[in-house]
């Protein structure tokens, strides 16, 4: 009698249950994964589009931009330009994974291995998720946010709420504490403290905005720049210090900021997160096959999906749209295992852990302690660069040609690795714009400064500034570091 968990390809709840149990055993015994409890939810394609529109969050407040996102995506989906992801997973405890009802049983197996064990373990163990997000509190907090914003719409009108959300969204990428570890979310405490905050905030503000100096000589005696050091978190600064913002608007800024912060690690770890999940599903599916639990047919169907997901088109391929995080991440995690089990002389020169047979230890360490930028710097091996045929191209706007600055050879490996890490860092980080001063005694204008030297898209910057202006209530200036664009923006 065969031990196969399934032989035909229709999924049932019983089969999903059995498969999950088998996968859980492999994940624990062979990969020693530490995961949150799993909650698997079966959803329809329409619901998957919904989830897409709200960045995968199961509960979200209402805003037109999510409606727009959904209209774009459902259009692409219906025209056949975009397939829906087979799964979507939420960094929460319990960890929620969505399984689409259209999936075959093989696909459900793959999704459970990939999301419910791969991503789940990554969420629970990666240090950035541990520090920046709170899997326990997020679902409660999202519900609180949805309720609160619905309440504001009822009380102040949809248009007023939309205006605040539009402005907050515009600077939400500049609303994350990148250097400091933020405090944890807790919906209940949030709700309790909210009213308290509203009441006391105005008092604190009065302190900053005291227009009647209690002692007439105070004013010149206070030359200190406020804020004392530049502030990178625009949303936080405005929430706490805008002179005339109503309490509920501050609360909305806070909600947008908290959610932006929750999402921040996802952008920082795309390659690792997907790479690790692919590594896990690849291992688990093979193990299921080795244990005689899935058929050869299932394994072949799995290969078809797996190779489609981890396919990296060449730069000159019409399908090329950047480096595929699934491909790069998967190749790198597989390579760490290879370096442990079958190292070459080159690996020994590059990696001190080469040849250590305990590959799980090194995989776990890499998964826990890095983000994409540092992961590439640390682990991108010459072998992976050769396999992907990586090369670096540089552009000088005044020249008529691009120049190949490095290729996958002994000269180029380190250079390529650094360039790629730099490129990842830039694409995941918004322009570094910080608040440098507030004219407390004059016209209260807010001065922002761009701290890096990457030119900004001018039109966008101007429009974003006018949003900042709408929140701040007084003039806003942006100084740019790039010398050619020295004139400050004013809004």
């Amino acid at each position, binding site marked *: 009698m065969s031990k196969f968990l399934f032989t035909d390809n229709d999924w049932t709840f019983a089969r999903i249950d059995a498969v999950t149990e088998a996968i859980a055993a492999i994940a624990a015994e062979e990969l020693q994964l530490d995961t949150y409890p799993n*909650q698997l939810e079966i959803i329809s394609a329409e619901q998957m589009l*919904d989830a897409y529109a709200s960045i995968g969050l199961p509960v979200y407040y209402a805003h037109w931009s999510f409606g727009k996102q959904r*209209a774009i995506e459902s259009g692409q989906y219906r025209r056949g330009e975009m397939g829906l992801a087979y799964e979507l997973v939420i960094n929460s405890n319990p960890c929620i994974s969505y399984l689409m009802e259209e999936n075959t049983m093989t696909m459900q197996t793959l999704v459970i291995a990939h999301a419910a064990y791969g991503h789940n373990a990554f969420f629970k163990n990666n240090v950035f998720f541990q520090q920046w997000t709170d899997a326990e509190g997020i679902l409660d907090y999202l519900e609180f946010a949805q309720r609160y914003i619905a309440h504001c719409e009822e009380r102040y009108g949809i248009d007023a709420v939309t205006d605040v959300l539009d402005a907050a969204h515009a600077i939400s990428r500049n609303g994350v504490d990148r250097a400091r570890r933020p405090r944890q979310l807790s919906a209940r405490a949030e709700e309790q403290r909210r009213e308290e905050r509203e009441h006391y905030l105005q008092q604190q503000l009065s302190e900053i905005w005291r227009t009647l100096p209690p002692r007439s000589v105070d004013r010149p005696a206070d030359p200190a720049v406020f804020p004392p050091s530049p502030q990178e978190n625009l949303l936080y600064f405005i929430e706490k210090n805008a002179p005339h913002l109503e309490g509920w608007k501050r609360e909305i800024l806070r909600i947008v900021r908290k959610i932006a912060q929750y999402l921040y690690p996802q952008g920082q770890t795309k390659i690792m997160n997907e790479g690790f999940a692919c590594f896990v599903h690849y291992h688990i599916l093979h193990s299921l096959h080795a244990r005689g639990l899935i058929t050869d047919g299932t394994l072949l169907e799995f290969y078809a999906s797996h190779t489609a997901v981890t396919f990296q088109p*060449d730069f000159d391929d019409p399908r090329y749209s950047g480096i595929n995080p699934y491909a790069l991440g998967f190749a790198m995690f597989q390579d760490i295992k290879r370096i442990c089990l079958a190292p070459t002389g080159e690996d020994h020169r590059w990696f001190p852990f080469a040849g250590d047979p305990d590959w799980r230890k090194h995989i776990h360490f890499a998964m826990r302690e890095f983000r994409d930028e540092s992961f590439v710097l640390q682990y991108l091996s010459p072998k992976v660069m050769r396999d992907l045929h990586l090369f670096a191209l540089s552009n000088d706007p005044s020249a008529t040609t691009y120049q190949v600055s490095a290729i996958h050879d002994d000269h180029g490996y380190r250079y390529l690795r650094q*360039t790629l890490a730099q490129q990842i860092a830039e694409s995941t980080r918004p322009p570094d714009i910080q608040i440098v001063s507030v004219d407390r005694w004059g016209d209260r204008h807010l001065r922002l400064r761009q701290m890096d030297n990457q030119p900004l898209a001018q039109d966008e910057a101007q429009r974003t500034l006018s949003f900042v202006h709408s929140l701040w209530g007084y003039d806003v200036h942006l100084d740019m570091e790039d010398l050619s664009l020295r004139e400050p923006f004013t809004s």
Partner: protein
Amino acid sequence: MSMIIDRRSSGTRSTANQNRLNRRVRARLKVAVEKMARSGSIEDLANADQPISIPTRDLHEPSFRRDLNDTSWERVLPGNKEYQRGDKISKPEGGGSGKGREGSPDGLGNDEVAIVLSADEFLDLLFDGLALPNLLKTVPGDIQADQWRRAGFIKDGSPSRMHVGRTMRAARARRLALRAGKRRELQDLLDARDILQEEIHGRLAQKQDVSVERERLSELNRQIAALERKIKAIPFIDEADLRFAHIDQQPHPITNAVMFCVMDVSGSMGEKEKDLAKRFFLLLYLFVHRHYQAVQIIFIKHHSTASECSEQAFFGAREGGGTLVSPAIALTEEIMRQRFPPERWNVYLAQVSDGDNYFADNAVVEEHLMRLLPRLRNLFYLEVNRDSESDLLQLYEAIAQDFPELITARASEREDIYPLFRTLFATEETPSHV
């Protein structure tokens, strides 16, 4: 441990976002809807589920972003085939901002968002700010019909309407009420008997006489027996408990409407005129339809004689001969009398003609109209394709002085119809003051 939850039945949650999106692009949607009403095909207008595309630049969400054009950058790319370090690759012509997108089957690119409006949303936009002139002037008793309605419970009725729940409730209440006093009385008697029996035992122990007490005891026993009989005799259900569901006739406003479409099909009405007429009728129909549960349409075509016909025959027909308007009005009157009595129907009449009426007929038309108009909600008359007002239109305009429910207009181009429609039904602007 893992849990599996089936979420498929909980449906989509995109409505709130969709509403807010529509709200944001309302101005654009309105322009698009009005354009469809002006020159789009009538099928589009009638079905109204065509997606309306909105350029995404209207919906752009700005943020601080890097400008990647014309700057120096360095990128790592996959798939090197023959390049060596130091190779130079000439830049593509024209700045190389990418290849053009190929068109997609529905003509939408990535820079457009398609919004599909529901029929109601479409009509809301189409008729935004418009109202039927006579709709609100409901004369009491004018558009009423009797309808059976539930009206509580009564004690008498036919067995088929008996309400078991109410009946049982009444029975229980009666039993409780009738028993309670007797039970209390019974308990008192039982207590008294216990005391008496103890007293008898006491006296017997002291060898005293108990004959009086014995007599009282037997009296008590008799009373107790009588009470118990009475309690038992209370019936479980009594005729007085019966309850019946009651229904009553109540006046109810009529929500049905009928629209008579009357068109001249004499030789002078060509394809173009018919198209104008069709557009006019359709807009009117959609507009009237928004106010009522159901709208019936009756098509009447006429040249020198009038006949009721199907929609196809109505718009397809092209018949020759002279024109007489009065037979069509007479036929309308007749059909109304037979099938749509105005006390039960909201009647609208829409008439399109080129105004070429036989001169002597105008007086007959006037006579008919005087009888007909008071029974109509509105009469809409559209005169098509004429350089000057016809005698018929002048007649109508004269009548309209006394009957505001008669509304007249002229049009000669397809694009005129919708704006005309807007001016006809615009709600009176209240002068804005602070």
